[in-house]
């Protein structure tokens, strides 16, 4: 409560004569007593005489003269001697923008265009500079999760190697020249109706672009459109169109499906719209009590994929034989039968029981099941999947179809034909990098030159730019206006957060100039398109709301009913050619890379250094091969081989991949670029030279030849086996129902003491904390997509260190995804002995051990566990790492000396040490020490991506996950500001979260206040499945995990009572349930009695 301030008499105002005399009068000076005129004057004046004004005009002007002269001289002196500071233009807020508070970030809604449509985003902006990308959780079809690419795309914005100039024939040119060239193209095209004018674009569902495309088609009917689809993700739409006889696009509702069969379909990893697939799929892996249902995932695939990681039943078969498995499934499920199916099915070579049981499961869940085919599979497999879904009545339930505009564009092959025929006058390339990604036989680099004029809008000056008359730098999506539709058809804006750094153009602008629109600025174009979508009254208000929310409400597409075109399916089946790879006839599978996509993220350091979710390899691609095949062919990891396919060959290193089908080679796209930036230079090898238009995904007839060289490969996780340790705990659904507390029974048998000898000082400190932060990670929902890793890197200014340093084990990721393979458990004594010794082998020998052939895979995000009794803290000699009262293990960078003892004593090994000055020195120059300087242009842009709320660490200090301390503090400050004088300073329940949790599309990571019983994390920690990793060490982690529950089908031939990791554990440690009886009675008798 405030007490009123005592009123003070102002001496200047209250002239003593005015004071009424009450009682005694006191005087302060003799002057006052005398009340002389001088005193009255003194009282009147504010300052003593001589101090209140500068009365001498000459001296003041003289002073100004002298000062300006000396400043001028100083300036001349500095300039003349060359000793001056670099010109740094600062732009002070002469007028403070409305609602702007310096240092407080602002958030804008926008969207990132993706092959599947767009990802709705909210982007954080610090003083006008975008710094962090997050998903837009307001969007009706999003939970705020994103994928790896979206998280990392902000680094592309500040890529010092992006195209920064307008170039004519490779020489610098003024932007006006490009504009003139465009208007000339426009004039010529208007004159001849677009004859010879060809556009090459990437698939994109922007309504504005569609509108401009239609305008061009009307005005320039002769102009041709071609699509550059480097990966081949278009097939879903194409197949649906063929299966149902109308232009539709499927949208898979994995949250509606009880049983999912993925036919070489990596819908959780490399298909389109992954973040939504993960969200939907993971929502069905949520389980909180016995009796809850789980979905079941069958995966048929050749290469190990993220989807394969999460399979309940994974059928390992070469990609080229997936069609046979699909046919076998179809022949079980399609009542009316399709002739020829049986024959195809017969050659599958798969355990018929697998097919029959899987089909039975699908049939039992008719209308609640889903069969999906992957982009690598031929059209026939897609058609079979549609046929099965139609037969099961899944259409409209687990898969819905949206009408899309009829695709009129042709492909690169047709464009190459036109070019070779000399039919292309002007080629406008608006997307893609065909010189790198085009099918090898098109010989694009030379074919492209056959056009009379090539104008290219490109984000990089890359392979395709070489043969261009004009190269126009493209604006990043964070610099440009645009629009797009998300996969559910909702309209989302792409609004810029920053003016184009290098004056880049957008596709819309180029098209508008060619079509000759009066208004060519993208903003007007997008706004005009929006007006067509919005038919209501308050156009301006709606537009503002659209930009504010980041989507147009209720604009989602309506599903359309479809009928299977039986004929098309039957015809497709007739054209199936079956073949099986063998040692002499190897199969090559080209796959979209989890990190660099088709090569477009090749120069993105975060993605290059992100461990591949499957192999954990960084900065390279490899030739994936199975153990058996490698042994038969006499090759081993890191060995360089030449892969030969007909008369084409590429060279790359071998990598044995557990769970890969035999006689299959997996080749990732996107590496070995000839012309890329400083980051991507020299990474991996290019597989496109093997890829032809006829066999863009799966090609047979390859052979390999060892070259007798080895190639160093950097891998962040060298050990594959979990070694039967209870670090990841999992059980089958049935086991979980019998032993709901199985996670607690595992791994804690060796708990040394019930109460520690000494009380933990933190237990008292804890009483003072308003909040107690904690995290829960649901291993059942985590699919291992690694979006959280990039989000953490972006949020926390985590540096990249380069391939060589990763090879030395010095990667800096605060959050990593551990991936373990669990294999067969030895049956007899000899196998057991062999397996025992294998444990101690060097990591190089794992590739020869046969347990890796058919592994189950488990993944686990691992970050600082924020132990209440943290082993790192008591060994730090300088108190640099300590505990705060809210339960955070905090790291004081300024205090850290760098003894590294904390890391040695951390059982989770989640601390990372700055062995070099990663920020100050460029990659490859770490060893030059003070001589290794980063170029200014590189650094100028690089530092813009940094989060200003997080310290950029120097060399020699330890760093680790902070639970996004800066976010916690911001939330606390915001709440304190709001609370004012009241005591309402507790941050509202779940009002903010960490960067990893925010980015997780699966919702597997939950962060919050443990003091708040209502918070999600508190409730999750009450679940039976909650366990702490390495509990017996009594570190009392604040991060706990929810054990994984698998849902295998007991009728399947590969069914086992318990997951393989559980069996490994049991074999080493004994059955965790053996002594559960007694313990249960003591601790939680009621639950176990019921379940027994």
């Amino acid at each position, binding site marked *: 409560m405030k007490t009123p301030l005592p009123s003070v008499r102002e001496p200047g105002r209250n002239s003593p004569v005015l004071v009424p005399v009450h009682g005694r009068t006191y005087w302060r000076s003799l002057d006052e007593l005398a009340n002389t005129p001088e005193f009255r004057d003194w009282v009147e004046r504010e300052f003593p005489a001589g101090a209140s004004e500068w009365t001498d005009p000459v001296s003041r002007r003289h002073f100004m003269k002298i000062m300006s002269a000396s400043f001028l001289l100083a300036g001349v002196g500095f300039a003349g001697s060359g000793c001056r500071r670099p010109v740094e233009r600062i732009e002070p807020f002469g007028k403070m923008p409305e609602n702007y508070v310096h240092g407080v970030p602002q958030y804008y809604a926008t969207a990132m265009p993706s092959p599947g449509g767009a990802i709705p985003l909210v982007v954080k902006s610090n003083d006008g500079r975008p710094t962090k990308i997050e998903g837009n959780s307001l969007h009706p079809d999003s939970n705020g999760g994103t994928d790896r690419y979206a998280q990392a795309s902000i680094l592309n914005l500040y890529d010092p190697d992006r195209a920064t100039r307008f170039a004519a024939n490779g020489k610098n040119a003024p932007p006006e020249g490009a504009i003139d060239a465009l208007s000339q193209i426009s004039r010529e095209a208007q004159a001849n109706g677009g004859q010879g004018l060809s556009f090459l674009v990437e698939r994109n569902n922007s309504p504005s672009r569609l509108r401009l495309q239609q305008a061009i088609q009307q005005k320039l009917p002769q102009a041709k459109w071609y699509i550059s689809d480097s990966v081949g993700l278009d097939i879903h739409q194409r197949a649906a169109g063929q299966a149902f006889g109308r232009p539709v696009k499927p949208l898979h509702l994995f949250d509606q499906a009880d049983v999912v069969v993925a036919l070489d379909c990596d819908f959780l990893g490399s298909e389109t719209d992954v973040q939504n697939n993960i969200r939907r799929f993971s929502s069905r892996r949520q389980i909180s009590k016995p009796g809850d249902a789980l979905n079941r995932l069958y995966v048929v695939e050749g290469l190990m994929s993220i989807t394969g990681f999460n399979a309940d039943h994974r059928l390992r078969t070469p990609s080229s034989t997936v069609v046979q498995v699909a046919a076998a499934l179809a022949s079980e499920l399609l009542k009316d039968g399709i002739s020829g199916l049986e024959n195809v099915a017969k050659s599958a070579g798969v355990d018929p029981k697998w097919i029959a049981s899987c089909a039975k499961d699908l049939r039992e869940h008719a209308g609640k099941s889903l069969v999906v085919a992957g982009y690598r599979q031929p059209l026939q497999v897609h058609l079979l999947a549609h046929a099965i879904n139609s037969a099961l009545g899944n259409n409209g339930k687990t898969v819905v179809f949206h009408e899309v505009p009829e695709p009129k564009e042709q492909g690169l092959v047709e464009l190459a034909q036109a070019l070779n025929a000399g039919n292309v006058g002007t080629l406008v390339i608006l997307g893609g990098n065909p010189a790198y990604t085009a099918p090898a036989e098109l010989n694009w680099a030379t074919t492209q030159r056959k056009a009379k004029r090539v104008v290219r809008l490109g984000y990089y000056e890359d392979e395709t730019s070489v043969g261009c008359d004009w190269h126009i730098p493209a604006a990043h999506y964070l610099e440009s206006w645009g629009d797009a539709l998300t996969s559910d058809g909702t309209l989302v804006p792409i609004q810029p957060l920053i003016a184009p750094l290098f004056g880049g153009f957008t596709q819309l602008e180029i098209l508008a100039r060619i079509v000759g629109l009066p208004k060519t600025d993208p903003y007007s174009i997008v706004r005009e398109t929006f007006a067509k979508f919005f038919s209501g009254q308050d156009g301006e208000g709606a537009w503002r709301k659209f930009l504010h929310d980041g989507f147009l409400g209720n604009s989602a597409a309506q599903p359309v009913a479809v009928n299977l075109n039986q004929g098309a399916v039957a015809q497709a089946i007739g054209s199936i050619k079956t073949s099986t790879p063998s040692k002499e006839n190897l199969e090559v599978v080209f796959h979209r890379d989890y990190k660099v996509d088709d090569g477009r993220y090749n120069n993105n350091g975060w993605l290059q250094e992100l461990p591949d979710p499957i192999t954990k390899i960084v900065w390279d691609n490899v030739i994936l091969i199975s153990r058996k095949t490698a042994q038969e062919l006499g090759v081993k990891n890191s060995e360089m081989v030449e892969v030969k396919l007909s008369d084409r060959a590429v060279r790359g290193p071998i990598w044995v991949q557990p769970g890969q089908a035999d006689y299959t080679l997996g080749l990732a796209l996107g590496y070995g670029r000839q012309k890329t930036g400083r980051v991507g230079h020299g990474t991996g090898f290019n597989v496109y030279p093997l890829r032809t238009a006829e066999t863009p995904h799966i090609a047979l007839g390859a052979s390999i030849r060892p070259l007798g060289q080895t190639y160093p490969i950097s891998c962040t*996780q*060298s*050990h594959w*086996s*979990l*070694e039967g*340790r209870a*670090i990841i705990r999992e059980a089958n659904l049935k086991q979980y129902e019998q032993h709901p507390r199985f996670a607690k029974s595992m791994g804690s048998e*060796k708990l040394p003491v019930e109460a520690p000898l000494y009380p933990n000082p933190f237990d008292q400190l804890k009483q003072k904390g308003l909040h107690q932060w904690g995290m829960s990670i649901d291993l059942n929902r985590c699919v291992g997509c690694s979006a959280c890793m990039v989000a953490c890197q972006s949020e926390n200014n985590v540096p990249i260190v380069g391939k060589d*340093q990763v090879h030395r*084990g*010095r*990667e800096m990721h605060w959050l*990593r995804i*551990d*991936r*373990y393979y669990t294999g067969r458990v030895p049956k007899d004594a000899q196998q057991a002995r062999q397996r025992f*010794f294998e*444990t*101690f*082998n*060097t*990591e190089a020998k794992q590739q020869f051990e046969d347990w890796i052939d058919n592994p189950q895979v488990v993944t686990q995000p691992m970050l600082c566990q924020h132990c209440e009794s943290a*082993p790192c803290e*008591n*060994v*730090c*000699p*300088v*108190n640099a790492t300590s505990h705060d009262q809210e339960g955070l293990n905090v790291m004081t960078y300024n*205090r*850290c*000396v*760098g*003894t*590294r003892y904390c*890391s*040695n*004593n951390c*059982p*989770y*090994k989640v601390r*990372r*040490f*700055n*062995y*070099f000055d990663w920020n100050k020195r460029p990659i490859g120059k*770490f*060893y*030059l*020490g003070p001589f290794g300087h980063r170029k200014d242009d590189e650094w100028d842009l690089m530092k813009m991506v940094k989060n200003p709320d997080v310290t950029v660490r*120097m*060399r*020699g*200090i*330890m760093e680790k996950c902070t639970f996004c301390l800066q976010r916690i503090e911001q939330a606390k400050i915001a709440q304190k500001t709001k609370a004012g004088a009241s005591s309402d300073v507790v941050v509202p329940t779940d009002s903010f979260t960490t960067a990893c949790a925010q980015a997780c599309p699966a919702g597997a990571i939950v962060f919050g206040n443990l003091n708040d019983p209502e918070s999600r994390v508190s409730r999750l920690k009450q679940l039976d499945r909650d366990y702490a*990793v*390495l509990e017996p*060490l009594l570190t009392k982690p604040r991060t706990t995990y929810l054990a994984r529950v698998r849902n295998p089908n007991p009728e399947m031939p590969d069914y086992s009572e318990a997951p393989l990791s559980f069996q490994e554990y049991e074999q*080493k440690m004994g059955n965790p349930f053996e002594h559960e009886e007694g313990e249960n009675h003591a601790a939680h008798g009621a639950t176990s009695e019921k379940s027994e």
Partner: protein
Amino acid sequence: MASGASAVKAGPGSPVTIPQPPPELERQPLVANLRGFGWISNRVASLSEDPAPIWWWILFIPSVLCLGMLLFMLTYQISTGVGVWGNMHPVMWAWDIVNFVWWIGIGHAGTLISAILFLLRQRWRTAVNRAAEAMTIFAVMCAGIYPALHVGRMWYDWWLFPIPNSNSIWPQFRSPLMWDVFAVSTYFTVSVLFWYMGLIPDLAVMRDRARTRLRQFFYGLFALGWTGSNRHWSNYEKAYLILAGLSTPLVLSVHSIVSLDFSVSQLPGWHTTIFPPYFVAGAIFSGFGMVLTLLIPLRSMFKLEDIITMRHIDIMCKVTLATGSIVGYAYAMEFFIAWYSGNPFERFHFLNRALGPYQWAWFFMVGCNVLVPQVFWIKWFRQNLVAVFIISILVNVGMWFERFVIIVISLHRDFIPSNWGYYRPTIVDICTYIGTFGLFLTCFLLFIRFLPMIAISEVKGVTPQSDPHHPLGGAKVNEVIPDAE
């Protein structure tokens, strides 16, 4: 002494008969060949008075070059970062701490010889204690480089000292690294003091013998005005005893505390209560190994066979055998406890030592530390200088591998298999390590060149003739055997 001698002589008329002890009980004298006082003074002092022998230069020049390499390597590391070494995640400590512990361990023999053996009245120590103490000091200097410079920001090393500062932050007294700072710095200070104390009477000898003004000045300065008066000797002996008493617990404490760096942590392979005694035994083991390595060539090159006799070598071999066996017992006990505890991580770790990727290091360790010294049960090996020299080097190699095994193998595969890695040193690691030999040898060679490497006054005290109760003791010696030189 003269009075004692005359007392023996002044018998009641009848000649003194001395019964000869049976030969098997006869002790060999500590200074052989009945060398007189003058010979001892001349012999020891001549090492620094005569021109340096060729072999000295042959050793000194490469040593200085190695020292230069050390300085270069450290400059490189300080300016560039700890990353120039092979240290990695998860092996955050590697050669830096291996070498630190190894050098500290070597330092142990010196103080043990000079302090504990002094208190235990092991008179044979006098022949080797000076050189051993010098070895201690130089070894601790080499060791000190590592903890001081292996940290990420070595310019903040002073934060480890409890110095009041403007931030009012104290070091963390719970951290064993903090204890290390105290243990090592105290050990170094006391060792230097002890060594210097013992040097004073000999520095006075050097001063008195000095022929140049420069030598007179410096030896005189450091001799602190020693005159050899009774009062000086009396104070000296008291001070020496006190310092010996102070050093004795330090011998045990330093390596115990260094071992706590490991045993306080909870890493399997480190978290062991056996560490303090096991480390002390290992340190003495390696220290004696190093003393033997240094003294065997020195005694022959400086012709000190009469002072450092085969009996000395024999005793030191026996100490090596004893401590080596203790170390072997500790290895066995670690395995037993790992099995007995039932802790799966401990069990895995110890099997991984013997079967894992660093198997070779473990075999080196067991072979050199446990098996090789067992040959010292046989007298022939103890008497064969070549064998002793080779074994003493193997002991040092073995002890280096012991530290490597403890530090690197424990770290490279711990609790969570995804962290597992394989450590490899870099060329900078290797050159820095070789460079520390440069520092050590430079210091040691300068020491033998300018300071009496044998405690002249103490050795004289253990000659037969200085013992009044010895048949040859006292003044009569001069009558029996004239001074050799």
